[in-house]
């Protein structure tokens, strides 16, 4: 008989904390973004591009994207765990989710640093 105590082992605590930490990063970025866009009023390509050419906004936008992708990983993984019961299919969905999110992160880097 397996006599493992589940309570107190902190299974999932790391993801629980990261989900909330990334949420706070995204919420703060949302406010910064709305203030900056409101101040700049980017009607032209140059003005819009200028926002993300700024070093701080480039860094903050990258941090936002990474937070979105990690937050989405935890949330979508929870959805698969709740609704997809066959183990093989669930594993496949999780791998596919993680794969596209890692790909998006690479894409986001490319967008921000090659613009």
């Amino acid at each position, binding site marked *: 008989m397996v006599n493992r105590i589940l309570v107190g082992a902190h299974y999932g605590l790391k993801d629980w904390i990261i989900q909330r930490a990334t*949420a706070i990063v995204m919420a703060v970025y949302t406010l910064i973004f709305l203030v900056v866009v409101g101040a700049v009023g980017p009607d032209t*390509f140059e003005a819009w*591009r200028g926002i993300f050419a700024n070093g701080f906004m480039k860094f903050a936008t990258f941090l936002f994207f990474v937070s979105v992708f990690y937050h989405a990983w935890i949330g979508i993984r929870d*959805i698969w765990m709740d609704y997809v019961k066959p183990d093989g299919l669930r594993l496949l969905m999780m791998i596919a989710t993680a794969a*596209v999110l890692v790909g*998006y992160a690479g*894409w986001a880097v490319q*967008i921000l640093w090659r613009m």
Partner: protein
Amino acid sequence: MAELAIKKKRPKNLDLPTIRLPLPGILSIIHRISGAAMFLLLPFLLWLFQSSLTSPESFAGVKAVVGHPLAKIILLGLVWFYMHHFCAGIRYLLLDLHKGVELEAARLSSKIVFVVSIALTLIIGARVLW
């Protein structure tokens, strides 16, 4: 103690069509649906973001796409999803801190989430989309 509580016979009502979901429950399922929808839209949004930053021509292309009436309605829905997820998320962070966990407070805060997120959606829609 805990096992005793679980084994106790409790009345069950799992006739789903007759269960009226309370407002915090509606908030919760929209939180999940909006999250899933935004996840599915990620490649399209990244493509839009990339096009907006590539060249003046592609920027104009994005403006034209975003300016289409049908696109505006979809984007307004997306803004509402974002704002609902944002406001409901802040409510969940407060619940994590044991703020507003009582029934009445939880019902009130879910009403506030709906009012604030819809108001923000309309403001952003009016300022940016129309």
